[in-house]
Every structure is written in C-alpha cells, then in structure tokens.
C-alpha cells in the first residue's frame, strides 16, 4: 500500500513517533530569599509570610512538596479498595488500600487531561475512572483501560501512564503520613522527640485509636500558618479569646482557678513541631463520661506521671507543617492551604478503640460542642485568624512586624520532658516553627536538585 502524502523535511515516520519532551523554564519557579522575613532569635515576623503570592507558591514547592504530610487515619481503611481523598498542599491525592492491603497514595489527576480520577470524599472501589474521557486505573495506579486505544501510536505504552504515586507513605500509631520526597528522613526520625508527646494521645493502650463519625470540613479566611503556629505554641490566647466559652462551661458561671491560672510547659522542636500543655497532678478529661471511664492509674503506669499530668489531656500540638491536634477531645485536624488567604480545615475525632460506645459518643459530642465547626472554642479561633488575615494586605499594615518575643530565654532541658521545653505561656514553639519554615523555604527541595 502506498501513501499519496509525501513526508515533509524532518517528518518522522508514523511507526515510531517521538515520545515527547518538555522542559519547564526556571523562571516559573523563582525563589525568594526569606531570611529577612523571620527573626527567630529576636522574635519578629514579617506579615508578608501570610499574604504574598510568590511566597505561597514557594511554600507549595519547598514546604508541602518536601515534608511528611498527614493523609488519613489507618481506621479509614479495612479492606482492599477502601479509599479517602485528600490534599497534600494543593495537590489532590487518593489514599487507598491495595490488593496486598498496603496503604498507598496517588496523585488524583488523570495522566491524560488532568481531571481528578476520583471525585468522592471516601468509599470503596475496584478502580478509578476519569469522568472526562474514561482513562481508568486500578488500585495499584496502573492504567488499565483506554477508550479508543487503537488511536494511539505504537510508541504509546499504558505502563508509562499510570497514576503518579506518592513515593513514601508511612504511619505512626494510626496516623498516616506521606511525602513526595523520594529519599526522606524517616517519618519516625522526622517526629523525633515529638513522638513522646503524640503518644500521650495515641498510645493509651495497645489497641490504639479509631475514628468516630465523618471528617468535618470547613473553609476559613486566614493563612494556614496562623492556625498551625497557634496549635504549636499558643496557650496565651485561651483566657482572653475563649472567655465566654470558659464561663459558659463553668457551672458557677465563674471558671475555677485551676482552669484559668494554669502553669505548664511547651515542647519546642527543632523541626518546627510544638506541643503546649498545662501541668497539674489532677489534669483530667473534660467530658464527664470520658473522665469517669479513664483509669488514670493505668495510664500513669503506661505513659508515666509526666505525661499524665501534662500532655495527656488539655493541651495543643502541631506536627510541622500543617497537622494539629487537641488530646482532651480527640480532635485531629489538617490545615489545607488554599492560597495565601484561605485554608480549609479538615477535622477528625479519634477515640481509644477500647472505649465502649457510650464513652465514644460522649467524646464525640464534647468535641462537637467545643471544637467542631460550630464549636464554642473553634469559633473563637477561626474568628481571630480571619481577623488577622482580613487586614494584612494593607500596605502599611503588612509592613509592621509582629511580636513573637514571649518566653525568649526561657527554654530549658530537664529530665522530666524529652527535648527542649519553654513556659506554657511562650512563643518559643512558634519561633521554632518559623525558623524551620525559613530553613526549608531557603533550601533547594529534592525536586530542584540534579539527579546524582
């Protein structure tokens, strides 16, 4: 058979077309030196870190594409095909259990035209089909069905076009994290001493934790770091911001002295994590049913007095960059960045697997009342973050630095708590959070380095 069409100069044969090549210009990812925006020793912060578009895009490249990020709880996956969709930074990902019962994560974007291949929040499936043209992928991310496949050249191999997989997924006591870094510091090593504080919530007994109810999701005006740094470091706001909520929860209408006059410690992690907690021998779970069910003596045996009298109950923590938690009500949450001015809060309630149903329900309701999307404390916090963000774009406003100087010089190491701690009322963990942020923002990420 002969063709009537003459190939032009440089035309390639139909049987062996090129597989293609792209080269992204460096100008698309220009990096800003942020050293002058964070003074972690002097306790000053430039508000541009909350508002600038280019800094935000640099965060996506160097913070979110490079760090271990919280994905889901292991209790969300019980059989092959169970899936949950979330984000890593702004990248949509599917977390799923494959046929070998391994938890894996894939970029939720079709390799053909880029639409999401899974539009559901969670569920169970055998495959993921793009709703645009119908490319379909199995639970291992392999491209298994291509409508009109005959239309592609011989050089097209389905094996080359599977879903992009998150190269490292690991879990710590039920919390699943993933990172795009192909050669990361291990999850356990990246948690460091923070694991001791996390265990106060996650390791009450050998059975671990489970999720109750669904995942609450809400939008807030406010940069994601406003929430992350507060959970790492800020007990200072409690009596002021939450005055009405604390009063409301007090039967006498006047909060008890031991509630409003708290002393405690704040763990300061060099990798940007933080956990603040009041210290008192009679620290307790707030929900009465939970309090009555908990055997504090057994917990003292397992976790030690320092944890039971500190981070076990009332306190707050952040695992850098954007995973936070509240042990007293079992709230774990992620602050998804949605541009410099917005975040999406996704919050789970976790309880001890060993808890009977009525205790789980009491904890669920207590969390809903306090730190659910309409919780009496959560509303206060969201209002503060949105307030700070709403005015931060003013030119003069934006150029006035913020004060993070509380507790400078108060860091200490002792035998009671692992790592370095500061006072309960201190900005130390926030300073460390921003020091870590600055370090990552000024360091080439794995995807910027030339392959060895």
């Amino acid at each position, binding site marked *: 058979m002969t063709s009537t069409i003459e190939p032009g100069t440089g035309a390639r044969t139909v049987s062996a077309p090129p597989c293609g090549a792209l080269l992204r210009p460096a100008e698309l990812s220009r990096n800003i030196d942020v050293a002058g925006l964070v003074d972690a020793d002097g306790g000053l912060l430039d508000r541009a870190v909350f508002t600038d578009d280019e800094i935000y895009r640099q965060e996506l490249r160097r913070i979110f594409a490079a760090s271990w990020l919280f994905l889901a709880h292991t209790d969300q996956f019980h059989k092959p095909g169970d899936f949950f969709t979330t984000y890593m930074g702004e990248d949509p990902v599917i977390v799923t259990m494959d046929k070998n019962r391994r938890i894996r994560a894939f970029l939720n974007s079709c390799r053909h035209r880029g639409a999401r291949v899974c539009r559901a929040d969670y569920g169970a499936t055998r495959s993921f*089909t793009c709703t645009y043209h119908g490319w*379909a992928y199995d639970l291992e991310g392999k491209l298994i069905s*291509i*409508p009109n*496949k005959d239309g592609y050249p011989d050089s097209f191999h389905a094996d080359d076009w599977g879903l992009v997989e998150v190269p490292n997924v690991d879990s710590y006591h039920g919390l699943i994290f993933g990172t795009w870094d192909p050669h990361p510091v291990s999850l356990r090593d990246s948690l460091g001493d923070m694991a001791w504080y996390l265990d106060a919530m996650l390791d009450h007994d050998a059975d671990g934790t489970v999720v109750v109810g669904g995942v609450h999701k809400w939008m807030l005006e406010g940069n994601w770091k406003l929430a992350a740094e507060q959970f790492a470091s800020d007990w200072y706001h409690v009596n002021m911001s939450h005055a009405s909520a604390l009063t409301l929860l007090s039967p006498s209408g006047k909060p008890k002295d031991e509630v409003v006059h708290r002393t405690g410690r704040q763990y300061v992690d060099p990798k940007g994590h933080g956990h603040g907690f009041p210290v008192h021998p009679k620290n307790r779970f707030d929900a009465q049913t939970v309090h009555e069910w908990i055997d504090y003596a057994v917990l003292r045996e397992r976790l030690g007095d320092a944890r039971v009298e500190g981070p076990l109950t009332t306190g707050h923590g952040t695992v850098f960059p954007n995973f936070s938690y509240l042990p007293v009500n079992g709230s774990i949450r992620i602050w998804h960045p949605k541009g410099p001015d917005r975040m999406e809060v996704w919050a789970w309630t976790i309880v001890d697997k060993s808890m009977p149903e009525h205790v789980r329900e009491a904890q669920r309701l207590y969390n809903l009342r306090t730190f659910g999307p309409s919780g009496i404390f959560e509303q206060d916090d969201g209002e503060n973050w949105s307030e700070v963000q709403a005015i931060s774009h003013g030119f003069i406003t934006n150029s006035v630095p913020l004060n993070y100087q509380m507790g400078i010089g108060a860091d200490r190491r002792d035998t009671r708590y692992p790592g370095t701690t500061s006072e309960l009322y201190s900005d130390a963990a926030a300073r460390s959070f921003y020091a870590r942020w600055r370090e990552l923002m000024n360091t080439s990420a794995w995807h910027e380095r030339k392959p060895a």
Partner: protein
Amino acid sequence: MSNGIRVAALDEIPEGEGISIDRTVTGTDDDIALLRDDDGSVWALNNTCTHAEASLAEGWVEDGYVECPLHSSKFCLKTGTVQGLPATRDAVAHRIEVREGDVYLFPHERP
C-alpha cells in the same frame, strides 16, 4: 444438541455480582461473564465491554442490567443490548441453563 458446558456452581455467584469464566473453558472468543441478577437469575455475556477494556463480571448487576465497572455503560442481561453511552455496540449474549445447582453454558445460542 449438547447438554452445554458446566461452568460454575450457582452459589459461586453472589446476587448482584458476576464471575468471569476463562475462554479456555468455554471455547469462546472472549471470556464469559456469568452475571446474577438481584432476583437470583443468571445470565451470560461476553466479558469484555464493547466500549473499552473492562470486565463486565466486575460490574454492578441490578434490575436486568449490568453496568460496566469502569465507564458505566449498561447492557441488558438477557439480550446484551447496550442501554447507553459511552458504549455503542451490543454485548454478545449466550444461553444458560441451571440444573441441580450447576450452571451450564450454551455458547452462541441465544438466551
């Protein structure tokens, strides 16, 4: 007239689901999907969707139809007639008999 090919025990096929029988067993061009409707009846179609690579045996079976697990085209269990896009061609249907709890296939005989 043959007695058909025994291809499965009826209780191997849960209601609302299907199983695939390899073509080396059936002697057909394609694997055969045995599909069990939610009323308990069993039907046989060529297993590969007429639209694109997909196993109808892994689809959803309900109310006289099977829905392709990948692209949601529906086919009549009895006739193989396609009910909606993206598929445009009918599936091939084969006759089935259930005798004493076993499923017998009559390749290429109309149901």
